[in-house]
């Protein structure tokens, strides 16, 4: 497989976890809540999936566990922010810390332990297409699932009544209230959904992409997902391209190393974060105006407590 194909394929597979987290974050932010603890939900999801897979032997059961774990952590965030009114950015960050601590506390037993992970399946027929086949159709089931989740998310947000309520909670909560719905309830559900999807992303990371668990294995992917949502202008389908781009940036280093091409390893390691920053810079100004109104408040008027 040549370098380009390998990097693109790696981009898809490696970007899937970021994509899940970004899709989840999109829902939350559309409802007007920013969940900076996405990284924590990914971590707890990754550990829960890995641990349950190790105990039960089935990565699918692990997947469920991962989703639940991510959702539970997000629930903590939702309660502190929505019920107690705490600063969203600070709370998200503390929730991340909670996730870090919990996963290190309960994860030590699973470092270096082998599991029956998700296997990669080539989809018959489609995988034979030159280039596209290798890039898109030689992956694990969770990646294939993400191909469906992203358009489903688009449909949910823009074509369904639930999506209307979500967007209403973020843009015109008073209108939502006038129609008898509770913006707060919608926000709770949105944040929990964000955590759930981030948990799935974490599960993909540990049981499909790397097949291992170690402390802090997400290495900032959750933050990249949060940034991704911004310069995808809160649109689920645009998040797909961004996620794969960063997946490719993450996949570049091992691909080059495997070929003996000696670019500085740390330059490559820093590349995804630099690319994210650059994307934010280039696309940021235009995109910032596309923010849901409720979110703009969080960003511009972070109060000093």
């Amino acid at each position, binding site marked *: 497989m040549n370098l380009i194909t390998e990097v693109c394929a790696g981009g898809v597979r490696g970007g899937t976890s970021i994509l899940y987290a970004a899709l989840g974050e999109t829902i939350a932010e559309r409802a007007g809540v920013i969940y900076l603890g996405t990284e924590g939900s990914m971590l707890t999801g990754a550990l829960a999936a890995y641990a349950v897979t190790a105990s039960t032997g089935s990565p699918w059961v692990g997947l469920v566990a991962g989703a639940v774990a991510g959702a539970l952590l997000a629930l903590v965030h939702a309660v*502190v922010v929505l019920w107690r009114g705490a600063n969203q950015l600070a709370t998200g*960050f503390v929730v991340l*810390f909670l996730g870090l601590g919990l996963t290190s*506390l309960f994860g030590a037993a699973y470092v270096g332990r082998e599991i029956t992970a998700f296997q990669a399946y080539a989809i018959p027929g489609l995988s034979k297409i030159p280039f596209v086949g290798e890039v898109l159709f030689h992956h694990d089931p969770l990646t294939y699932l993400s191909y469906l989740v992203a358009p489903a998310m688009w449909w949910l947000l823009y074509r369904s009544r639930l999506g209307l309520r979500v967007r209403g909670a973020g843009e015109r909560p008073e209108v939502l209230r006038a129609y008898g719905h509770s913006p707060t309830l919608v926000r709770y559900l949105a944040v929990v959904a964000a955590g759930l999807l981030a948990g799935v992303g974490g599960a993909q990371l540990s049981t499909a992409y790397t097949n291992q668990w170690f*402390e802090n294995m997400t290495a*900032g992917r959750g933050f990249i997902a949060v940034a991704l949502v911004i310069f995808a202008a809160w649109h689920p389908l645009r998040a797909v391209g961004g996620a794969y781009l960063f997946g490719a940036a993450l996949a570049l280093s091992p691909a080059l190393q495997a070929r003996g091409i000696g670019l500085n390893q740390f330059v490559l390691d820093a590349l995804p974060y630099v690319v994210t920053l650059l994307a934010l810079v280039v696309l940021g100004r235009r995109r*910032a105006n596309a923010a849901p109104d409720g979110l703009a408040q969080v960003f511009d008027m972070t109060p*000093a407590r």
Partner: protein
Amino acid sequence: MSETSVLERPAAEAVAEAKPSLRDRLAGVPWLGWVVAVAGAPIIFGAFVAVKGVNPITMYADMLASLTTPAQAETVIIRAVVLVLAGLAVAVPARAGLLNVGGEGQIVIGAVCAAGVGLLTDQRLPGIVVLVLMLLAGAAGGALWAGLAAGLRLTVKVNEAISTLLLNFIALDLMLGLIYDPWKDASGFGQPSSRPLADAARLPLFTTGHKLNIGLVIAVLAVAAVWWAMKKTEWGFRLRVVGGNPEAARQAGMRVGLLLLSAMLVGGALAGLAGMVHMSGTEFKLRPGMTLNFGYIGFLVSWLAGHRPLRVAAAAVLLAAIAMAGDSLQINSGLPAASVNVLMAVVLLVVLGSNVRARKAKP
């Protein structure tokens, strides 16, 4: 917003009104919140470790015992010194309404710049000159790193919470890149690191044979300086107005952009100082993992303290003690040191959740 929009009131009135309401909101953590947090968190954490099969009572007993030996108490103070600076690095921007989660990266860059200057000069110039240069380099490096994020916020509206976070990772890779190649200590073994600094570049100790260095003086001075700046200077007042009500500040004619920039630069400089003090007082070289999450714990310190300088000092000592207790966890109770983050996070969550007086109604 439910109450009359700020835009409909004359600017001067809004500013005058901003002052008392600021005092309400900046009144810090109510005592009840503190008590609940400090009492409830250990119980919750104890429950978690009990699930892991560790007896929480003996764990806490071990933690307390480990903290009361003089050597350990000294280490707590040394760590608290760095945490105070890291906490102030978050507190100053927070007063202006900015969220600086880039302490970790700013500490690293500060340590790198200080180390660079130290490596160049420690065998050529007298100690005091070297140290002063390193202090300046560390502060400048940290300020620069924070300034990047501030610049991004002011020019292209990139929220500093995200940009500083991303810069943390980049800073870490920058340091690793330096350690692994151009600055690599050829005579080192095990973990790659930079060459250990000569005595001229090390922070002097209070008494030989002990570990406490004059970083303590630097930290005390920093606390005093920030307190004085916040309470007694025009700049500090303006910063607080911007933090409480940026729209009112803008209407009153304050240069909000410049104030935000200056707040981030000061915060970054403090974090850079933290990096310099840690490197030149304890580590004496750059190595992977040297920052021990000081940046992130500094964030927790500042929020725990309600961003008030004197309380930052107290919170820093508390969290330094808890962090040290994390080491005891590893040695005595067999739990990973990082699990102490659970305790810290729970304390913070309770504090954050209890600090709810006088909030504006959510739309």
